[in-house]
């Protein structure tokens, strides 16, 4: 046996084999990503809409959750502190091309802002002129009528698209399936709380993707957001990871891949090309479209594999809305249970006899840890769903009573954009010297 070539080969292969397991992960990821794209392309469709008008929907309405701040809680005016009378002695990095005035702040240098701590904008806060652009993201996002994307659900033509595509109430919806053609689509059902809608096209033999159940999805895994807005052979790709699960009260994955009209309705896939969810604009308050967060690293992908019964309901033409119980909760009650501070009228809670001071201890047998936990249990449901509560009434000596089943109402707003006054989940800049 001629060993020499074997030994030479061995010598060549040995250093390769000796390398550690992750020889640059990104170099390995590139071909894997290309393979995933190739696999996903066939079931990723283009959605084009025509006609319709820009009109706003829905009324503003109270929602379950922390009580809004009472008008008394205005920001306190902290007395302006007298700075010590020292001229600027902080070294200011200078551009030698500019006149050498040490105290002059470079007007071109961009002023970063500390991140605010998420408090609601008090309309009384006066904004400085040069900080105008630091205000809230403009609430009036003008939706263009460009192409969006969709995902094939069944081989006989059920397509899942984003509710975003239907915002303008189009008169015509066309679906282009790569390799199959363009079809007229029928608008059927939708789940506004999840930002998705079902349309039907008349066709057979469509390729169907593999869906991943949320139980098998992990925070930190790769998530590629694909889209068909810019018409070409390959879908567009945005890179990211799964940032969180069970967002929007259990409805969607949060991903940090940029999502925008470029990929709304498109598939968010894993490294194997399987669908984790459908990218849609959403927001927790449910009060606006969530589009103003486009390309911010905060994106949502509604999960599909865990809602087969909802899909059936949508196929039957139902319009599903987020459920609303009608309670305001205390923010300083840390648990156990969720303490009620108010029950708006025409809410299901008030009609069921719940009152201020009651503490909700259980929801359908599950112990309530605190207010936010209660929100997760109830706001994950749809209008028409029911729940049974165990409530500790305000009177100290009373035993907890069972209340229900209470039928949740449809939330009196929708996930749609409301209009110019629309604000994202409100956050404000703290004043550096004071004010809350």
């Amino acid at each position, binding site marked *: 046996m001629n060993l020499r070539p*074997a030994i030479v080969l061995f010598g060549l*292969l*040995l250093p390769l*084999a000796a390398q550690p397991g*992750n020889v640059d*992960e990104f170099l*390995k990821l590139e071909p*894997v990503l290309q393979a995933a794209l190739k696999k996903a392309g066939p079931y990723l469709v283009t959605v084009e809409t025509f006609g319709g008008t820009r009109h706003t929907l829905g009324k503003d309405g109270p929602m379950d959750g922390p009580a809004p*701040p009472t008008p008394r809680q205005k920001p306190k005016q902290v007395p302006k*502190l007298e*700075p*010590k009378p020292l001229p600027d*002695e*902080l*070294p*200011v*990095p*200078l551009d*030698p091309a500019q006149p050498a005035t040490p105290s002059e*702040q470079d007007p071109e240098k961009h002023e*970063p*802002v*500390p*991140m*605010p*701590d*998420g*408090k*609601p904008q008090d309309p009384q806060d006066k904004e400085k002129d040069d900080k105008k*652009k630091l205000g809230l*993201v403009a609430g009036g996002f003008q939706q263009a009528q460009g192409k969006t994307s969709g995902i094939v659900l069944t081989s006989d033509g059920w397509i899942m698209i984003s509710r975003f595509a239907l915002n303008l109430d189009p008169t015509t919806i066309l679906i282009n399936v790569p390799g199959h053609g363009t079809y007229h689509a029928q608008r059927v059902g939708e789940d506004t709380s999840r930002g998705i809608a079902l349309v039907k096209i008349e066709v057979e033999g469509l390729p169907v993707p593999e869906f991943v159940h949320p139980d098998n999805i*992990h*925070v*930190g*895994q790769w998530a590629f957001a694909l889209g068909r807005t810019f018409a070409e052979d390959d879908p567009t790709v945005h890179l*990211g990871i799964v*940032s*969180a699960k069970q*967002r929007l*009260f259990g409805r969607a994955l949060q991903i*940090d891949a940029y999502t925008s009209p470029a990929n709304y309705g498109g598939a968010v896939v894993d*490294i194997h090309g399987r669908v984790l969810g459908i990218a849609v604009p959403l927001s927790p308050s449910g009060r606006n479209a969530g589009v*103003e*967060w486009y*390309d*911010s*690293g*905060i994106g949502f992908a509604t999960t599909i594999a865990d809602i087969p019964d909802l899909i059936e309901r949508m196929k039957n033409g139902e319009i599903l809305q987020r459920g609303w119980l009608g309670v305001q909760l205390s*923010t300083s009650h840390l648990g156990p249970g969720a303490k009620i501070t108010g029950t708006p009228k025409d809410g299901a809670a008030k009609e069921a006899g719940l009152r201020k001071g009651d503490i909700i201890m259980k929801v359908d047998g599950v112990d309530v*840890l*605190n207010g*936010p*936990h209660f929100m*997760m249990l109830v*706001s994950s449901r749809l209008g028409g769903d029911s729940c049974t509560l165990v409530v500790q009434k305000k009177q100290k000596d009373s035993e907890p009573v069972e209340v229900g089943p209470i039928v949740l109402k449809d939330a009196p707003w929708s996930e749609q954009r409301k209009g110019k006054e629309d604000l*994202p989940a409100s*956050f404000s800049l703290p004043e*550096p*010297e004071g004010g*809350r």
Partner: protein
Amino acid sequence: MMLLAVLASCVMQDPIDAVAASEAHRVAVIDRCAQAVCSVMSMDAPGGGSGVIFDPAGFVLTNYHVVGKPDDDYKLPDPPQPPEAVLEAWRQQTEGDDPDEAAFIAKWQKEWRREHQPSGASHYKNKKIGLPDGKLYEGVVLGIDPGSDLAVIRLLPKVAGQTWPSCTLGNSDALLVGETVFAMGNPFLLATDFTPTVTFGIVSGTHRYQEGQGNRMLVYPDCIQVDAPVNPGNSGGPLFNEAGEVIGINGRISIGDRGRVNVGVGFAIAANQIKNFLGDLVAGRHTEHGTLDMSAWFMNSRAGKTHKRGVFVQQTFADSIVAKAGVALGDEITSFNGIEVRSANQLATLVGVLPAGTWVTLSHRPQAALGGFGDEREVTVKLTALDTGSSRDGTGDDARLGSRIDRRIAKDQIVNSWPESSEPGVTVQWTRRGPDGSKLVAITDGERIRLEIARSVLVSLDEKEGDGTQGFAKANGEVRDLTADERERLRRERISNPVLWPRAAVAAHLQHALLVGGVHVHGAPAYRFALPGDGDCEAWLFLDGTPAGFAFRDPMRRAHVQWFVRDTKLRVVVDGELETGWSSGMRATGKPEDQWFRRDA
């Protein structure tokens, strides 16, 4: 041939398997780290930010601007009545006599206040912290650093002895542009179940200098720029490297024209900077940043002209600390704390991360009268405090936001985190040589201590008895008992000098100590522990438990002396003034020599 086939199959691994393996590894690291990331909110006002638990005792790091200013109208709660068991025990003790119960209760309440309540002028209401286990906890605000936007909170346990998952601070100086990082936090308060949002990106820039707001608060002198998406609500949350270490705290973003959403430029406070303030923050202090009281700029003229390329003093005051040390306008600054200074930004970064009161060395080339520059000379100065305009809670050691209980818990945690040493008894001989040749030698075998000060020798033997009579002095040829001052001097050296403590005895030495703050010693951060008794005794140890120095009121010199020690480097400060000319040497041997501790030798 079989071997070849096996080898070949190993090499020709399907890339997707390798990717899936990397991904699974990352998912596991993120899962572990996420458990220590929390949401930090005000108790009754909406809004909030993020934080990270960096110690199992429940210490949380976050931004100062998430915590906000102290609550002006918050009054500390009244102390409770003594528990019935305590009262009952006291009644039984004083049975028969006519005890004044009210007086006892008042005394007990006074002691409770001393232990539980911070002594600063204004305080914070407890914060509300949500953890990924879904539970809400109350948190006490301990230390704040408005200068560079840091704060530390301690979680109050729901059950006795509760511990929390935590992450460690890594080395932020090891970051390189292009390194992958993860940010975790609660942007836009989307985490209704408090599971953190994880975003991925790379380090876009390191050692960035960001000016502050208003009165020099919230300066980010040495921050990490990342393109991992960071949005309002991420403030105070951690930035992790691939290994799962906290290498920064996110706090700031640059924004474009779209309003306050991320555009790929986020800033995090570097972990190494945070370490500089950790002692003060955990001890519940309101810290201040240091300044040289001068500004510098970078000149870029061609060689051959009067100014060459370098960093020069641009502005300073006649009575600034650097001016008093002999640094003048126009001098070239060459190095700071041993680091070559190559730009004004870099100098600002190097100074900006240090607390007020830090002793630093600066090398400069004085501008010569006839043009050109003189020889390089080194000066040592103490950084003064940079006024941020935020009111300070009183002065000195009374400026506390943390209670004694908090500081004791912190001390216990810190000491427990140091590796235990079971090395056998070592005899340490530490020589300190002062200016004009004076010499101070300290020899100890862990129990007995011998001090040779100038020409006298003081020896203290086993002090377990406590009365200190078992010691002697040798001076002017005679052997005699120790004077009260000498006995006190030995006691103070013994209890506060960690250089003389055997590693195994560190915990015992600090048993009754309190964490009171931090100190910067020869370029590294250290903790300050106050020891009970007279003399303002403090022992200093670096973050890893190695000796960093000590301080006490020296009864023989009648002055407050601070010893800054790092290996063989020694700096001595007497009543706040630097005493130059000190050097030190160390020897460790196995067995002590008996003659050192014998009276008749």
